[in-house]
């Protein structure tokens, strides 16, 4: 199994994070569906949302991937989008949260 990725999240957000992570899982499924459907506008919107919310909670990688997906959708870079979604899936599988 791959190495876990540790993310430090503020203690006062601890009760919000399970829902946050659940929503990221749903988001990943929606990204895959949008990619299969070729719905670049939805991909752009989802990327935009990821970019805004990720670092706010402490998940910088979510924001970085969000920006790449938003930009990739704008450029119509299907291969790049597919790679970012795989990367997002891998990140979510490996992320380990520490509250401080």
């Amino acid at each position, binding site marked *: 199994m791959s190495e876990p990725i540790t993310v430090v999240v503020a203690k006062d957000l601890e009760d919000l994070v399970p829902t946050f992570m659940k929503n990221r899982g749903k*988001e990943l499924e929606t990204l895959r569906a949008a990619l299969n459907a070729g719905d670049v506008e939805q991909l752009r919107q989802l990327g*935009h949302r990821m970019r*805004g*919310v*990720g670092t706010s909670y402490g998940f910088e990688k979510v924001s970085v991937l969000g920006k790449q997906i938003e930009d990739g959708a704008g450029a119509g870079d299907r291969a790049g989008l597919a790679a970012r979604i795989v990367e997002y899936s891998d990140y979510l599988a490996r992320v380990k949260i520490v509250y401080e």
Partner: protein
Amino acid sequence: MSDFAAAPLAKAEQAAFRVLVVDDDPDMAGFLVRLLLQQGLQAETAADGRSALEKIAAAPPDLVLLDVQMPGPDGFDICRRLKGQEATALLPVVLLTALEDQDSRVRGIEAGADDFLSKPVRREELIARVKTLRRLHETRKELEGRRLAAEVLEKEAIRKAFSRYLSPRLAERVLRDSPRGEDVFRDLSDRAAVVALFADLRGFTRLSETVPVSSIVPMLNEFFTVLTAAVHENEGTVFSMAGDSMLVGFNVPVTQVDAAARAVTTGRAIIQRFGPVAARWQAEHGLSTGIGVGIESGEVVVGNVGAPSFMSYTIIGDPVNVAARLMQRAAPNELLIGPNAALAVNSMLARSAPLERRAVELKGKAEPVEVVSLKIAPAGGRR
């Protein structure tokens, strides 16, 4: 697609400052609400523009944190609508935009946004901006409160000034039409058609010689109270009270198409209502009193007359002089109506009985003046 990450409505115990967070991303909305609650503020969320507008209309918050990209009306639309309506124009709006999104910032400024918050949100930035806007909002509220208080005081002062002359009902009407009274007393002098009514107390000179001095002022006050009540009911304007007589005007300062009829009705009411007072005074002091009334209409000068340190709003002119002289000629409990006023209330007088038309000589008039005399029975049966 997502579960809601925070309670939709949450209140901090001691907060009075209410923030509405408008964001279609429940995770972002929940995050912002959490930070606001930690600052002791009240926070509520709306998931789209339409519900945001409904919530603001139902209970305007003190601050709106507004995401730019939303389904339905977007953040720019919402901001533009809020800033375009008088009720919400001063409501601070902070737009949530991406840090590098300069186009959105320009559009936000054009839409009237008060400030911007970058996404991803840094808590220090959010707290600093909310604190600043809260301080500004509270200062603005305080200034608005002071302005309203000053307005109320000014209106009250105007109302008090008006109440020297006008009935409370008429004063309300004047203030409603012209909140500062500027249209009513704008000109220091003006010509106007008015109906003048003079009334005085008959027998008071003898009464004042026999009753204790300490009783005279209360008795005069009782007399004028009866007169003023009747005048106010008919929306007359009291111009002066001197000795035991009173000058009242109708059709001034506001138009009254039935001014002459109001004057006659007032004259009748004055005499009738004074009846019980006169009866009591007679029982207590053994002297007969009554009221003489003179009425005439015509053009007069209306204005503030006097020295800069003491001015009176008054009416001056021939109809006022004629009304004064008719009052002098009137017997106790008699209304003498001058020719111009009588013409204006011809049909009303035709229904009056007993009525007498006669010519009277008045000081300053070369020819006798045709007047109408109405003898009024005071309440209580005396005449």
